[in-house]
């Protein structure tokens, strides 16, 4: 098992290198190049020259790349043109929010999706099944930001049940240690703060979780339908095992294999889906930061954030592969 993990970790290296090259090239390809990108169109030639010298842009391209890589490895992606703060600082400040949101969304998607998909398959052809199918189709067809608006209009504005924006009611003066607000609330025993932060996750979380939910329902349903027809399930029945033993040990366990992969992929995609959702819900996470960066032409932020997000994405998928290995003995040996 350990060797499996180590090998997968090693396989990451080329990918991450490639990523860095890509984003390095991206910044170079920007109109006016990095100096302009950092200093803006109004920058004087002297200023540009100063900047180029400062960041060694007068050197051969590969030297520049190595410098870039060197700094990237130390998580130094320069400073934001908008706030004048280190990109990494901004990222670390905002990532926790996005993580909380993503986790909520995924828990929602998995918690609802798998049971629903399973039931749909069990009651194959029933109204429940068809509604699940239709719903899952709609789920992927609705533009996320529109859904987000609808949710907020209904539950935050009309019904006023849930907060419609932000990460925490500003009137609550909560202390923040980790920037994971829910966690902070629990650590500092400010229960109301924790609860409030949690409530702020609900609407954006649901909006964000809808697509994965739809997909998970679909996959679960399909794979349960497959597994139920597998020979080994027939065997299990032939052995006269109790119905739920058959389900638990033989159906569900195998049906979840494909689902687990999807979960991983989706978790990664949520990171980018957050751009839309966080924007609509004015949720102070990485996504809304990227949105702002787009309009402020804050390329340092864009480059740094996208790179770091991609890394997170890759790592998440690694975790999934590993968990897949745990679930499926066949993978483990190979």
């Amino acid at each position, binding site marked *: 098992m350990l060797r499996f993990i180590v090998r997968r970790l090693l396989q990451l290296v080329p990918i991450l290198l490639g990523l860095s090259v890509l984003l390095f090239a991206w910044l170079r390809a920007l109109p006016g190049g990095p100096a302009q990108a950092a200093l803006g169109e109004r920058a004087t030639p002297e200023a540009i020259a100063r900047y180029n010298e400062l960041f060694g842009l007068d050197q051969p391209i590969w030297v520049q790349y190595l410098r870039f890589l060197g700094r990237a490895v130390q998580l130094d992606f320069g400073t934001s043109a908008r706030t004048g703060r280190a990109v990494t600082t901004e990222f670390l400040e905002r990532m926790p929010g996005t993580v909380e949101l993503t986790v909520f969304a995924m828990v929602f998607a998995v918690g609802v999706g798998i049971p629903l998909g399973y039931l749909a398959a069990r009651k194959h*052809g029933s109204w429940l099944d068809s509604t699940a199918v239709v719903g899952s189709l709609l789920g992927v067809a609705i533009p996320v930001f529109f859904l987000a608006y609808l949710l907020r209009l209904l539950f935050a504005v009309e019904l006023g049940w849930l907060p419609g924006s932000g990460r925490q009611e500003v009137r609550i003066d909560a202390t923040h240690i980790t920037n994971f607000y829910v966690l902070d609330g629990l650590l500092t025993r400010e229960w109301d703060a924790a609860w409030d932060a949690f409530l702020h996750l609900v609407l954006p979380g649901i909006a964000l979780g809808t697509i994965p939910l739809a997909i998970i329902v679909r996959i679960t349903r399909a794979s349960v339908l497959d597994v139920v027809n*597998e*020979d*080994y399930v*027939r*065997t*299990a*029945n*032939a*052995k*006269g*095992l*109790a*119905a739920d*033993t058959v389900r638990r*040990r*033989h159906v569900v*366990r*195998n049906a979840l*294999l494909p689902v687990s992969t999807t979960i991983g992929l989706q978790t990664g995609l949520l990171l980018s889906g957050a751009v839309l959702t966080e924007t609509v819900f004015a949720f102070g996470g990485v996504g809304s930061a990227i949105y702002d960066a787009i309009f402020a032409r804050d390329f340092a932020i864009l480059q740094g954030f996208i790179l770091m997000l991609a890394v997170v994405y890759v790592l998440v998928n690694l975790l999934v592969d590993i968990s897949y290995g745990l*679930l*499926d*003995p*066949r993978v483990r*040996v190979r």
Partner: protein
Amino acid sequence: MSIEAMPPEDAVRGDVPVLEVEELSVTFARRGEQPTRAVDGVSFSVAAGETVGLVGESGCGKSVTSLAVMGLLPRRGVQVGGSVRLGGTELIGAPDRTLRRLRGSEMAMVFQDPLSSLNPTVSIGTQVTEVLVEHRDMGKKEAVAEAAALLDRVGIPDPTRRLKEYPHQLSGGMRQRALIAMALACSPRLLIADEPTTALDVTIQAQILELLRELVVDSGTALVMITHDLGVVAGLCDRVHVMYAGKIIETADRHDLFARPRQPYTGGLLASVPRLDAGRGVPLTPIRGSARDAIPWAEGCAFAPRCDNAQDDCLTEVAGSTVPLEYDGPGRELRCRHPLTYPAAPAGATASGAGR
């Protein structure tokens, strides 16, 4: 395998049949499509220690019959008619709980493809012990010990290690042995083996058959052997039912069947098996076409389109009635209007054919 290798004449025979199947019929009616009758009025019985073969090409309904007996057919879109009694208890329409209690303990089944029949994500150990835990309410420890014993009994070396392994780590033969071990875990009264050897290498086939035979012999289990391989039949079965298009078309003791097949289909099957005792150069005579060419029994003999003896009266509309399954000499039944005929044999021979 050939007729030469035959089991001892007198195997142990219980008089109360373990399994009685009467007029069993299975109809698949899937939405939008016209219902198809996969099994049509099949009747047979198996006594303790007896081995009965269901023979026929793939798609003739023999597997469906076995699944119907085990009650493993899906509930929806399937109608099962007739009666199946296991040691007197009616199984058709019996509640799921009863069936589950009987399965694995009273009746067990061994399937064709050992790899796909084992759960890839669960260790062999668990898959064996779960039966014991279920039916012989053993504790975990006890069950593991017993499981090891079972694996040992079906000839798997180093059982304790194997218990920890997963299906993909075992060889085909071992997998099948493991499956058999699970099937016999509660020494059931009825064992159905559905093409247990087709997926295996020839050498392994022989071992598995041998294993099955021993088990039947010394446990007195009733064995239903489903196969298309006459070699297996010859090696194992006491009585043989030949099926075609969902119906039994010929029933006989092994000897008679092999000596004097009456249904042209049976004849065809035998003729298409290479025989060692046939002189060199004698060509194999295969049956024309494939099982797909059958016609519905309602319109005549399903085999007619492929049959050389077929006459116009093989068709219902000409004969006015479907071809019936009729008495055809002691211990024999036959569904055919123009059977294969043989020069009258000496009376003695006939008498010695099937015991009175």
